[in-house]
């Protein structure tokens, strides 16, 4: 396939995916639509992880907590304050974003393990907090969210409407993350990930970059959580435990942590695998995940996306234009780290 053709294909791919996505609820049955909507609600969270963990190299285990925060924001606003469900979503994202900044500033001074530890604590503490503030969140018993059916003139049922909301948010997150990955900030993040000291010495404001990436991932997770609440209709603190956070990271790595398509693969896996595993045994899904990850780690360290790239390589194509490991790209990244520094200084 010639370069130009493959480039064209690359630009077109997201639109094709979107078109397929829109067609789905009208072609498939309600149950499948529901499952796909659930998967799409995870997509923003995984996209956020691509930015902070895949590109930024920061191991963020706490995004399950931001997801939960978004879910509860939406739930509480709809249930106790009667907001329209669509209006709650920006609120969910925004609140998560703000909390992300507040937590990000102190934690991003920490390197490697220490950050992972902190976010791990966050993942464990969050369900406790949600259980504690019972009056708002409904405590251990959970929160039910009852949405009115769409008006009859629209001709779609509740499941389809929920799906379309999920799709819209997922598409927006996808587009935005794609822009981040391919732009200045993505390259700057990669430079910081590869060699923080050098990136800093070239003028990147490393802390700003990291906090921004962290807050962005938090916002997306919050958005996804809000969608999740709408799609599922019932949330409880035990939905969002450490196991959930672990699942997000596993989904990210299995799907391919460096690209937005990897996030898409990941969210399909995160929903798909438990469905298959449940046919063996209810509790088996954890085991299946574990075995899958271990196999994948030893056979396909770059995740599904890495596999497809390798296959594309065998067919003689150059693969897509995304991150290549040549020295030049590295230097470009460092250059962009400096440029992004300029951005950061002016913008914030």
């Amino acid at each position, binding site marked *: 396939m010639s370069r130009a053709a493959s480039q064209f294909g690359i630009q077109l791919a997201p639109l094709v995916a979107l078109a397929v996505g829109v067609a789905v609820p009208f072609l498939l049955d309600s149950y499948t639509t529901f499952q796909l909507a659930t998967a799409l609600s995870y997509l923003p969270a995984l996209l956020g992880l691509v930015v902070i963990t895949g590109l930024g190299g920061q191991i963020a285990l706490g995004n399950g907590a931001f997801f939960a925060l978004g879910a509860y924001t939406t739930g509480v606003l709809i249930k106790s304050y009667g907001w329209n469900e669509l209006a709650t979503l920006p609120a969910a994202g925004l609140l998560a974003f703000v909390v992300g900044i507040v937590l990000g500033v102190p934690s991003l001074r920490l390197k490697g*393990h220490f950050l992972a*530890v*902190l976010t791990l604590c966050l993942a464990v503490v969050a369900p406790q907090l949600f259980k504690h503030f019972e009056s708002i969140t409904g405590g251990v018993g959970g929160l039910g969210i009852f949405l009115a059916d769409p008006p009859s003139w629209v001709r779609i049922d509740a499941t389809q409407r929920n799906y379309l909301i999920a799709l819209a948010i997922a598409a927006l997150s996808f587009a935005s993350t794609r822009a981040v990955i391919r732009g200045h900030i993505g390259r700057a993040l990669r430079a910081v990930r590869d060699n923080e000291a050098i990136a800093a010495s070239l003028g990147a404001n490393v802390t700003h970059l990291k906090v921004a990436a962290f807050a962005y991932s938090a916002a997306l997770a919050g958005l996804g959580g809000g969608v999740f609440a709408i799609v599922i209709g019932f949330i409880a603190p035990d939905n969002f435990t450490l196991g959930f956070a672990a699942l997000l990271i*596993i989904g990210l790595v299995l799907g391919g942590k460096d690209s937005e398509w990897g996030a898409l693969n990941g969210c399909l896996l995160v929903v798909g695998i438990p469905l298959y595993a449940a046919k063996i045994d209810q509790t088996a899904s954890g085991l299946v995940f*574990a075995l899958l*990850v271990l196999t994948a*780690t030893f056979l396909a360290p770059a995740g599904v996306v890495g596999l497809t790239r390798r296959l594309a390589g065998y067919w003689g194509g150059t693969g897509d234009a995304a991150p290549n490991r040549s020295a030049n790209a590295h230097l470009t990244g460092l250059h962009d780290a400096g440029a992004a520094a300029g951005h950061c200084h002016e913008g914030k």
Partner: protein
Amino acid sequence: MWALLQQTIDGLESGAVYAALALALVLIHRSTGLLNFAQGEIAMFSTYVAFSLNQFGWPIWLAAVSALVVSFVAGMILERALFRPLPTKEPLAVVVVMLSLFVGFNALAGLIWSYQVQRLPSLFPAGMISIDRISFSFDAVGTLGVLLLVCVLLYLLFSRTRLGLMMRGAASDAESSRLLGIRVGTMFGIGWGLAAALGCLAGILMAPRLFLDPNAMQGVLIFAIAAATVGGLDSAAGAVVSGLAIGVVENLAGAYVVGSDLRAVVPLVAIVVILSLRPAGLFGTQRAVRV
């Protein structure tokens, strides 16, 4: 005043469990630079092994010691089979393997033993010693005693034996150790084995009081990680001291400040504060990075 002392002593008992697991984390980190997120679930699984042996009719001490041996071997196998041959040493890949062990052992335990809460008999006889208005259960005394014994044994191992010296060498500089003929892989394996055994011990000490189910060690793990981290991740003494301190703080916070719901939150907030002020932990050493 007496109540405060009592709460402190109760806190020390849970702290001892955190300290034991924190020691396991430090052991692995010192030898291989990895922070093992799955340590708690491995500990939980080995505690279940002790439970099963006990159910089978073995006296609890025998079951416990056997479980310790089994977990030692399992730790060595995990290191040899999973972590040594990892195709990439990227932190994310390692974390993912650990998370999958986490999720995997949890699910496996649920499959084998169900999620029903089980009781594990204590290693120590029931009963209390009372002095004035403070009472120590034999459990508490025994737990702290075991921790002390473990610390002494580890200290002797690392400072007085050839094996301990080789392990320290392998941890300090793996390549140089190889050039001296030391089997570095075996040293790491022993480190993992010891860590697994320590985790098993933590589980066996904790289970009689807090009961056993597949999720039982998650709370302990968080505090153990916090203790190890605040202690500097490479400092065994730091981990033990921090573990005990966290147990006490948690207990006092639960009794006097926030109520038992949020008692877990206080030590974690303390961690955030400490790490913000001293990013390398309280007893840790700042390492300069050469570019």
